[in-house]
């Protein structure tokens, strides 16, 4: 049987890359994944010899929306990912095996591919009261996570639960739900969102596989490729914001014309995500296009950033927009004049922002890793 699909090294060679290029890719992969340089050999081997890299997907405190989002991927489609791209050896959501056979899948991957498997984690870990708030097979989720993370080549935190704790960490965080990067003591690629966009999820995984290295991350561990721009800055309704044309209440004339949702509480100005460019479900829409403001679901602590329908100016300390907005603020709620002033100020500030971002892009080209701002 001629069954084996080409390894990543074989694919790269076919595309004209030299072995030197390949080693270089692996070096960056190792650095970004936080491996010691001595572990480099293992990464090279992992990507070179396995036709489909082994992958383990763990589930903790979550709602499975990340898994559901993943299977919505439109390019590539998930059937191709499962059959051709990777070997999803353990996933409580899709795998056929049950019982000890399922556990054996997990244990075999950890044992047989140390330093060579990719760990995907969906869900936060409850650290209160010895882990009694999430137990799987009679073990605490912390115990299972530590075991699986120890020898993983790369760790990806799916969604806001694993990246920043999401809803169960909202006040008063009854179970001390904790994101995984605070537990495992090694770098994590955070892919936040509730859930993340399907094509972003498969984009991050295929970035690892196709380019043989982790994507560039910002200071919060998020791939810049998808989390480098604010929803607000890439929103197709941005011109209405700049022009001071706002929806004042749901289903008013302004709403029916698709004006800016800023005054309805839209969190686009403080949310870094790909929604307004990549969009959702094969590019069909994204929240703002369908008439509801962004709730900021990919941002750390978004559940506690005030009521969703209260507009941003009411909350102090919200970065570059709040400063301008506060100028026109009376008793926490901005007046129409305030918002207009805000828009004008923002346009002036935007020039500096664009200048900074151009400079940053140039800088980024020189650096393996950089902070966002």
């Amino acid at each position, binding site marked *: 049987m001629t069954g*084996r699909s080409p390894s990543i090294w074989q694919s790269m060679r076919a595309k004209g890359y030299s072995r030197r290029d390949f080693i270089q890719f692996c070096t960056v992969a190792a650095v970004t994944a936080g491996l010691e340089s001595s572990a480099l050999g293992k990464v090279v081997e992992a990507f070179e010899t396995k036709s489909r890299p082994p992958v383990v997907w763990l589930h903790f405190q979550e*709602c*499975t929306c990340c898994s559901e989002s993943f299977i919505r991927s439109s390019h590539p489609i998930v*059937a191709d990912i499962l059959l051709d791209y990777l070997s999803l050896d353990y996933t409580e959501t899709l795998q056929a*095996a049950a019982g*000890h056979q399922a556990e054996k899948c997990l244990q075999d991957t950890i044992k047989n591919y140390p330093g060579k498997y990719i760990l995907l984690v969906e869900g936060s870990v409850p650290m209160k009261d010895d882990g009694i708030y999430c137990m*799987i097979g009679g073990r605490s989720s912390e115990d299972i996570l530590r075991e699986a993370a120890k020898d993983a080549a790369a760790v990806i935190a799916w969604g806001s639960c694993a990246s920043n704790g999401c809803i169960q960490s909202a006040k008063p965080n009854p179970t001390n739900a904790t994101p995984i990067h605070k537990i495992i003591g090694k770098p994590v690629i955070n892919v936040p969102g509730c859930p993340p966009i399907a094509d972003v999820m498969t984009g991050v995984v295929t970035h690892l596989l196709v380019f043989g290295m982790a994507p560039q991350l910002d200071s919060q561990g998020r791939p810049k490729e998808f989390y480098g721009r604010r929803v607000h800055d890439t929103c197709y309704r941005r011109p209405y914001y700049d022009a001071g044309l706002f929806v004042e209440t749901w289903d008013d004339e302004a709403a029916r014309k698709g004006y800016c949702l800023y005054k309805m509480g839209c969190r686009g100005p403080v949310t870094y995500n790909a929604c307004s460019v990549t969009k959702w*479900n094969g590019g069909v829409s994204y929240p703002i296009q369908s008439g509801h403001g962004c709730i900021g679901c990919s941002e750390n602590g978004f559940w506690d950033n005030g009521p969703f329908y209260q507009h941003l100016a009411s909350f102090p300390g919200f970065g570059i927009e709040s400063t301008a907005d506060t100028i026109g603020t009376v008793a926490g709620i901005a007046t129409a004049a305030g918002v207009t002033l805000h828009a004008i100020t923002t346009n002036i500030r935007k020039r500096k922002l664009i200048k900074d971002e151009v400079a940053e892009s140039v800088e980024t080209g020189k650096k393996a890793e950089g902070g966002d701002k």
Partner: protein
Amino acid sequence: MARIVVDPITRIEGHLRIEAVIEGGKITDAFSSGTMVRGFEKILKGRDPRDAWAFTERACGVCTTVHALASVRCVEDALKISVPKNAELIRNLMFCTQYVQDHVVHFYHLHALDWVDIVSTLKADPAETSKLAQSLSNWPKSSPGYFSDLQKRLKTYVGSGQLGIFANGYWGHPAYKLPPEVNLLAVAHYLEALEWQKEIVKIHAIFGGKNPHPNYLVGGVPCPINTDEVNALNTERLNHVGSLISGAMNFVEQVYIPDLMAIAGFYKDWAAIGSGLKNYMAYGDLPTRGYNYPEYFKFQRGAILNRNLNEVFDVNGRDSEEIKEYISHSWYKYADGDTKGLHPWQGETEFNFTGPKPPFEQLNVEGKYSWLKTPRWKDHPMEVGPLARLLVAFAKGNTEVKDVVTEALQKLNVPVDALFSTLGRTAARGLETRLVVRWMKEFYDQLIASIKGGDVNTFTREKWDPSTWPATAEGVGMTEAPRGALAHWIRIKDRLIDNYQLVVPSTWNASPRDAKGQRSAYEESLIGTPVANIEQPVEILRTIHSFDPCLACAVHIYDPEGKHVHQVQFN
């Protein structure tokens, strides 16, 4: 005697564990335990009621939207808000979308591998599979070459030695009865369904901006209608919805239902296994004249006791004597003691974990053993879900339901009693999907007619501003999640959430027993289930999966003293 531990069962809002006692090849007792908790009720306290839909939607990402719907309804109920006709229709379309996607994914991706042996497909004759496919329906992907290419792909996959998600299954177990050709057909549709399911949810993206977790709004829906504007729900968007509905009807009628009937025909013995409780309850849904008129719902409301289909009882979510939650065997405590039940408006959520602390091998089933509370209707344990919905509608004389049920029973040549079973639950899910896609088309046509008639309203404005609200208010939002009856209860005080309780379908079905020792649906349905080989308890998976909680379970086998009988090694 052996004790089998199935842990975890996933794909519900939490992690589930089943412990089953097996004697003489049959299950004689079973215990169901929820082993994960997040404390939603505690997190919701003190927040803006208009935000609650977004919080509660995150209770479940598999049946996304249903908690958002229950939430906006309980707030609207408390504040006496009626939503415009268009909003009702759009919510119904989103509801139906969820059903069709969820039921298809359950059948192919969560349940099918209990019945379909993937390894056997390598022995199939693709030409015979093609003949079979063409005899079942007009679905175009049915040529010998199509199945032959798929078989080659599967051979390559298996030959790679990396079986991925198919590794270590119970392949070859004698309980698998499908011929290789049927298995090949089922695997082809497994992959097609995986691709198709991402299409139908685009309806959620159009109305709610994204899926999973589309946006909802107290008082209506957030997507405005404007057929003179590119920035709103316009003709192109409506056409897109219409196309997706047509595609769904084709997939359900030409792929899902023919596969369901073909596979069920090989497993008729499962019409006598897994029968479980004799009580069924549905809250009903798909309003046609508003939420307060359940008599006009497409899915009807009611309760059936002791399988008596001649009498359907009314169900009232407001009556403090009807729905109550008990915690005798749940890791919680009530201020006035753990023995009496509390109506959700009076509900309390105070953790009280009594052990065992992890790592552990067995639960203390004499005491508290689950993070799920135990809900009861007039102190009766009730099964909820597709079967309960069909039975309530059937008993109420709903002719649409009667027609599809009768047709299916005749095709399979089984009596009505066959419905009370593992197979019955799985079949009911498919049969209601047939109805739901038809209703989707009706709702879509009504939405178009409404817009054509000049009504573009999608939101009721009067009570949006909290300053218009009374000092205190309480409401209940009832719906039918794909998995069964779901309701949220809210108490609002000084414009903020004072108490919020969710009673979800998994709680009805998967809860621990009550103080009287009455088992809930999962526990009861497992009693009497044969387990041919305790090392490969595929039978437990079949019955538990028929409720649609999950895919994968980790099974641990112990003797009555709690020691490992042995480590099971396959493959």
